[in-house]
């Protein structure tokens, strides 16, 4: 499972880095997505799980965009190179997306 996580992280990360919106307080936002994969590593569906966390008045313009860009990152990273023989272990995964100001 650790290796599946690392593999998915490695594929999503470069897209999320390019997609994360800019703006005041964007580093407070945090969203969890549930991804359902197909056996061939393509994405069957992505849905938001729970509320977007860290909303402030200043990041209001970026709130919907933050979720949209997280979903875009998941879709851009497909197809994922994951072992079909362990499909039952990675068929549905949850990921949390956040940004941090360096």
């Amino acid at each position, binding site marked *: *499972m*650790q290796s*599946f*996580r690392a593999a*998915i*992280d490695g594929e*999503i*990360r470069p897209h*999320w*880095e*390019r997609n*994360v*919106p*800019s*703006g*005041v307080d*964007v*580093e407070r936002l945090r969203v*969890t997505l*549930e991804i359902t994969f197909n056996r061939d590593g393509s994405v069957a569906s992505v849905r938001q799980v729970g509320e977007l966390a860290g909303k*402030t*008045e*200043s990041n*209001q*313009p*970026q*709130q*919907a*965009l933050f979720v949209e860009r997280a979903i*875009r990152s998941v*879709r*851009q990273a497909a197809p994922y190179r994951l072992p079909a023989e362990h499909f*039952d*272990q*990675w*068929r*549905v*995964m*949850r*990921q*949390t*997306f*956040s*940004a*941090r*100001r*360096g």
Partner: protein
Amino acid sequence: MKKRLSFLVLSAAVILTPLAHAQTAPTAQPSGDAPTWAPAESPEVVATVRNDRTSIIVTSFATPQSQDTAAGSTSALGTQIAQVIAADLERAGLYAPVGPGGLRPVGMAEVTAPQFDSWRNRNAENLVQGFVRTDAAGNLTVGCYLYDIELGTELARNGFVVQARDWRRAAHRCADAVYSRLSGEAPFFDSRIAYIAETGPKNARVKRLAIMDSDGANHRFITNGQAIAITPRYSPDYRQIAYSSWAGSRSRVYVYDIASGSQRVVYESNNPTFAPRWSPDGRFLLFSMGQTGNTDIYRIPVAGGTPRRLTDAPGIDVGGSFSPDGTKIVFESDRSGSQQLYIMNADGSDQRRITFGGGRYATPEWSPRGDLIAFTRIQGNFRIGVMSPSGGGERLLTNSWQDEAPTWAPNGRIIQFFRTSQGRNGRSQIFQVDVTGVNLRRVPTPVDASDPAWGPVLP
């Protein structure tokens, strides 16, 4: 074509947690070894993300057949509109536009059916295409389309009908649509800026009121310079500009009507009056007036009348700026011994200090979004900063010798101010900076410039 901004770095974290029903039990491990996974405490994986600009391809806008208009042929306008859009997006600081120069032409059919594969090798995220055509009445219709190249999807489409001479406005509106869809922010390109144009030697400075589009186009001088003009502000409906003027010993608050080119005195006095600011409903002006060493903030109906004094503390109270809902006013006062920022209700009640940092604070300006107040921080040098209306979360955005007098873009994302360079030949010029502190750049003006005032998005 990505440009890297050097002084802001975002880190993005991707945290993975296996879903409960997809988990399998961890395999028992020999003592001392780490488990193969830990669902509840999955480590936060942090990656450093540079605040790269998003690369956007902007093609020349197509035209069904080139026709002449009052502003040139539609085929020439197709390229000019794309150039204005690309320049707007570049100036916003978040994007690295590619084109329209150097890109292949796009035909009408392709505008709504983009050939994504032909753009994918350019490593761009988005594609802007469109068309321009004219009708018998001489109006232009500009269609504007935004696509996600990687996902092959349409993100936005808009159409604008303008008179041919207003073609730049159609381009700004298209750039606004692209910018809003990609940044989440409200539009701001289709707006104007008033400022004070300065010429002549420092001991005999001519200060004229001038206006221009947000990109510097359509520049014109409003006053002739016989009286000194300062601190302009657009009315909320864009029809008028309030400003202060001094001629001899007389000080006046004027309202200039843009359509008619006429102006009228709202208030005049032998005492210095300055910094007029509109109430959000456009019915009142705040201004400051000094009398025998005591300066206070007054409110007066725009039509004129008797000003009502809102502050009465000994010392200097100046520069009121309304909150967007009109209920509060932020202003500066030295009643504590040094210039600090205060907030009061619109009727002058409940005055309280919000700044307690070192140094002095001046020229507060409430964001049109309501969430922040911009100010000049004076501590050694003059810097532009923002803070919340409660006084918390202070962030300084610039660091030069003398930056002052912030004004907000209508969407509350960009701040303009004027920068004075040191020395006898020091110049005053307008600059702007993103509210996150990036993309500092000069706003070109034909002569030296001070006191910028960014108006709302054009109606």
